[in-house]
């Protein structure tokens, strides 16, 4: 698709812990992101979503597979060649405390992207851009001279967002940006992110384990398990008519704040298998109610069930095993 801003083809990432153990973090992920689109990447810990994000921004080296950004194959580039492109792909990190240099003031933190990419000529233009981005994220200019330690959690995260946006990127990868924040602050940040996307027109790749945030922010969702995509589609389809058993369990696990709705909750048994010993077939088979014999032997492909909704399960797609 040439209209996509980001394209991932068959991404695999393995970490070698020592001679005997390899962690298979990402095992074949394909992804397409259109301009101005917000796509959510959800799953629980260990599913590979964070690693995928880090591969996209090249904080990790890809083991296998290709990533295309604006039709350029970034996986083939060296770090040096890729650096100028970083202006257009930015990342917001999970922990606002750790992702800001404690010794730099807010102003210095925001100045750096502009300096590195030569985006401002002279002090005045730089300050103007910094002040502009501060007001876009609803931070008072008086905070510019403060250190991260002197800011609240929500303010810090907004600085992180400002830093990502100051170069006016075309795409922003957000790795659990609200997970470390308190409940009441979370909504503010989500609201801000929605508004910013409308104002600045970037694409979002939103990584989270918090499904309720994803529901409110994204148009499409990919559900990951054990390094693979098990289901993907438009957000309404995934949330209202989930097909994969894991997606159903994931959604049913979230308590709904309404005492009158009584749901049949799916409680999965056991825990996911270790990433160092991937089962040969479907990674979910040992916890799945509907697992048939072939499920454990053959890895299911993503079956299209129409309307952009795909699911990696024969049974769920309504096919016979």
């Amino acid at each position, binding site marked *: 698709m040439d209209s996509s801003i980001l394209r991932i083809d068959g991404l695999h990432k393995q970490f070698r812990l020592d001679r005997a153990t390899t962690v298979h973090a990402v095992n074949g992920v394909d992804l397409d992101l259109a301009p101005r689109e917000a796509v959510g990447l959800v799953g629980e810990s260990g599913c590979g979503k964070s690693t995928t994000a880090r591969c996209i921004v090249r*904080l990790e080296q890809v083991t296998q597979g290709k990533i295309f950004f604006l039709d350029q194959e970034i996986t083939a580039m060296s770090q040096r060649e890729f650096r100028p492109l970083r202006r257009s792909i930015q990342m917001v*990190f999970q922990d606002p405390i750790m992702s800001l240099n*404690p*010794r730099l003031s807010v102003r210095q933190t925001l100045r*750096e992207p502009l300096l590195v990419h030569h985006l401002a000529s002279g002090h005045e233009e730089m300050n103007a851009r910094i002040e502009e981005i501060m007001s876009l994220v609803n931070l008072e200019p008086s905070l510019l001279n403060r250190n991260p330690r002197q800011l609240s959690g929500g303010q810090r995260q907004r600085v992180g967002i400002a830093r990502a946006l100051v170069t006016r990127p075309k795409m922003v990868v957000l790795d659990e940006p609200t997970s470390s924040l308190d409940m009441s602050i979370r909504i503010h940040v989500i609201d801000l992110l929605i508004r910013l996307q409308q104002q600045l027109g970037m694409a979002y790749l939103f990584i989270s384990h918090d499904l309720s945030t994803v529901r409110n922010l994204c148009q499409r969702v990919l559900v990951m398990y054990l390094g693979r995509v098990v289901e993907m589609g438009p957000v309404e389809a995934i949330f209202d008519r989930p097909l994969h058993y894991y997606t159903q369990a994931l959604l049913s696990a979230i308590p709904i704040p309404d005492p009158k709705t009584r749901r049949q909750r799916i409680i999965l048994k056991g825990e996911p298998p270790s990433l160092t010993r991937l089962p040969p077939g479907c990674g979910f088979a040992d916890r799945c109610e509907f697992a048939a014999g072939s499920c454990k032997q053959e890895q299911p492909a993503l079956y299209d069930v129409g309307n952009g909704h795909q699911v990696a399960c024969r049974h769920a797609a309504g096919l016979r095993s």
Partner: protein
Amino acid sequence: MTTRELSRKPDAVVRARPLRWVTRGARSLRGRKLFFLSLFLVLGLLFLAVFAPLVVPYNPLKTNPEEQFLAPSRVHWMGTDQFGRDMFARLVHATRLDLMISFSVVGLALVVGSLLGALSGYVGGMFDDVLMRVVDILQSFPAFILAMGMAAVLGNSIGNVILAIGVAYTPYFVRLTRGEMLKVRHLEYADAARCVGVSPWRTLYYHLLPNSITPSLVQAALALGWAMLDTAGLAFLGLGIRPPVPEWGVMVSEGAKNILSVEWWTWLFPGLAIFVAVFGFNGIADTLRARVMREE
């Protein structure tokens, strides 16, 4: 967001008042007193060092055989030594030398050691392995013995003393900074800097190095005291600084001959001087360490 809400937000504003940074939140009043006392002592010594010729009327090198071994009096505040030289004058002039050596030694070790350590921790690989083995070898000798050996080989001059002790101390700073760097390298802001597009060298210099140097700085304050002792120790053994240059260790060495006889002022005052200096440096180091730990 209305302006009313903004003005009501009770954000904490930390106003930086230089010395307050160190003692703010000090757990005991005693800690605070210690700091100010140490600071006073060190500053006093620095003052003496800088203004030595103005403070003392006597020439520290001028010998006066008729006036040897005079007890402390109003004319000679600390008496005279075996050559008739005024002890007080020698003491004050020695302050210059001793402080200069201490600061130079620590400066050398800190700068070279931290840079090497930071680089080693950041780059890793073969460079790191080799450097660590060199550091291991150096550290297998006690610092003083190493300094002794080097001073003996290099010869007796002030520059060589600084070099010898400086090299002996460098491994500690290498280790400390490398350790911090290994920690800091994986923190999210290092990743964030990379994501922003900062080159690895700039990341190292602007982001990681300033954040890995704190333990080294604290150690440096301590090292000032140790350097003082090591210099004096070397001089006492006849290495490094040799008489007639006024240096506290030299003076103690000369005065030690009189330890059993009447002329107590020849060894007591230099010894006290060393004590005061080391005490001052250690006091500051202690407070710095407490402050850094509190911050964590």
